[in-house]
């Protein structure tokens, strides 16, 4: 650890306390903190040590990092994250090969037990982890080693958090989320494909000042994942009024009606998109006319289709097969139970006939 505070870093870069307050305003706004919490956070950031962040990537597409660094306008928080805290990231750093490995080892040694380990991508377990290796070490052993010195692990992106695309059926690499490997450290999942940049940095700063934030049952920070897209969607009133776009080019779509029928997974997707938005607050998918894919939820690849309405069956079986099979089986069952009943009736008839040939009725 550097013993430097975030404030110190800003000062060193010639920025005033006003700049610091602007940072705080940005962070607290992103975290949707109450005024009292925001004041508290500002106070704590004033004295908080600058965090050391080590960023490791496994089975991933680098989209998460793209989100973080190449967003439309890099936010203040990402500035802090990228320029101030990041001790190691093999994609961003200039060093390569042995030099990079040495840099990583040094960074880990210097902050052993204190650094925040950010992991991006899922970890393959099939073939002894052979599907992903860094510097001759499998992802799984690399992760275990790095996690050993981490104060907390932040799984960035749906791959790291829940397995993501590599995890989708049939999961050929045996991919698992970070939480399957790291069990003795707090794991904070920041899901999304990719996650929102402000969310990643916000969570790390929150962790620096307050520790592990309140998490939902999927270990996602409640601050960002506490509500569904649907809860805060500006198109929600159309949903409530039963006004839905039927196709991507109909009048409803032009009028900005609800995209539920086009497969929007907003109702079951927890993320901050409607409030934090993307690309420096420009918009989010639904605002651009596309249904939410549900990318921050586990298994979103395998939910029967991005454009299939949530209330419809995922339908892995052939509908014709199910229906015709059920009809055939039902008719067969009906005919056979009726045949059994008729046979019983036939026997009863015979019995009654033979009884009739004897004395006619019980009295005689």
């Amino acid at each position, binding site marked *: 650890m550097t013993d430097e505070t975030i404030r110190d870093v800003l000062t060193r870069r010639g920025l005033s306390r006003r700049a610091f307050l602007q940072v705080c305003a940005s962070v607290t706004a992103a975290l949707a903190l109450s005024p009292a919490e925001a004041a508290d956070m500002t106070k704590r950031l004033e004295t908080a040590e600058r965090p050391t962040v080590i960023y490791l990537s496994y089975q991933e597409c680098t989209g998460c990092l793209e989100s973080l660094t190449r967003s439309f306008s890099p936010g203040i928080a990402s500035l802090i994250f990228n320029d101030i805290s990041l001790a190691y990231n093999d994609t961003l750093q200039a060093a390569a090969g042995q030099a990079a490995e040495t840099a990583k080892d040094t960074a880990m040694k210097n902050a052993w037990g204190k650094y925040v380990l950010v992991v991006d991508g899922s970890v393959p377990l099939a073939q002894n982890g052979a599907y992903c290796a860094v510097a001759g070490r499998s992802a799984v052993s690399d992760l275990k080693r790095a996690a050993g010195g981490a104060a907390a692990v932040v799984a960035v992106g749906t791959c790291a958090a829940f397995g993501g695309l590599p995890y989708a059926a049939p999961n050929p690499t045996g991919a698992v989320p970070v939480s399957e490997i790291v069990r003795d450290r707090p794991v904070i999942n920041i899901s999304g494909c990719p996650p929102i940049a402000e969310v990643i940095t916000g969570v790390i700063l929150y962790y620096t000042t307050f520790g592990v934030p309140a998490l939902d049952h999927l270990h996602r920070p409640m601050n960002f994942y506490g509500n569904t897209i649907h809860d805060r969607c500006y198109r929600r009133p159309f949903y409530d009024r039963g006004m839905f776009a039927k196709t991507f080019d109909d009048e409803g779509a032009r009028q900005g009606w609800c995209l539920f029928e086009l497969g929007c997974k907003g109702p079951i997707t927890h993320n901050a998109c409607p409030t934090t938005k993307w690309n420096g607050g420009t918009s989010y998918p639904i605002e651009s006319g596309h249904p939410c894919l549900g990318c921050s939820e586990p298994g979103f690849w395998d939910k029967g289709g991005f454009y299939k309405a949530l209330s419809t069956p*995922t339908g892995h079986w052939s509908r014709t097969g199910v229906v015709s099979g059920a009809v055939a089986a039902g008719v067969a069952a009906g005919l056979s139970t009726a045949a059994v009943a008729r046979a019983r009736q036939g026997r009863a008839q015979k019995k009654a006939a033979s009884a009739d040939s004897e004395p006619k009725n019980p009295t005689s």
Partner: protein
Amino acid sequence: MNGASVLDFARGPVFEIALAMLIFGIAWRLVGIFALRRPVDYSEPRAGTGWGSGLRMIVSRSWPRREFRERVLHWDIVSYIFHVGYAVAILGYVPHIMLIRNLTGLQWPGLPGGVIAFAAGLSAGALLALLGHRLTSPVLRRLSNFDDYFSWLLAFTPLVTGLMAYYGIGGNYQMVLGLHILAGDILFAWLPFGKIMHVILLAFSRGTTGAAYGRRGAPI
């Protein structure tokens, strides 16, 4: 099992099984009834074959005859609130219409969520009242069996879970939605095997009596 997997489970395999059971059961029960011996009536009809009366009675018996209204109409109305509310919620709610479109290709415009919630709430209230009636009326207590209470429960659960999902009650929305769909699946699967089959048998049994009375020229 978490909410997401309950939801996937309910929308996936369970739905397919429930659909198969629904169709299988309806076919089984109807074929099983109609493949029994058919009674033959050689009597000379007074008024045609009675087909018209059969069809008429399917409709007309939906409302009690004047002479019985004083004694049964109040509970009929409660029952109607339940049934109509249920129908509005099932047929008017767009997510449900999506399901119907997915299954049959048919679709129609939906109603606002508030209307659906109101209808479903009324329906649930009426259903509770009907249960209370069943539990307190000596006649109904005498008649009721497992099927009556089980079917009640299966009718009630989707309503309540649906309302919970709509209002975001019960915490985890995915879980609540998953349970709602699961409850619907179970209702589907159970439908042909219990009293809820009346939704289909009703027409046949009314029609049979309507036709029999019709050919006699008797009032229906």
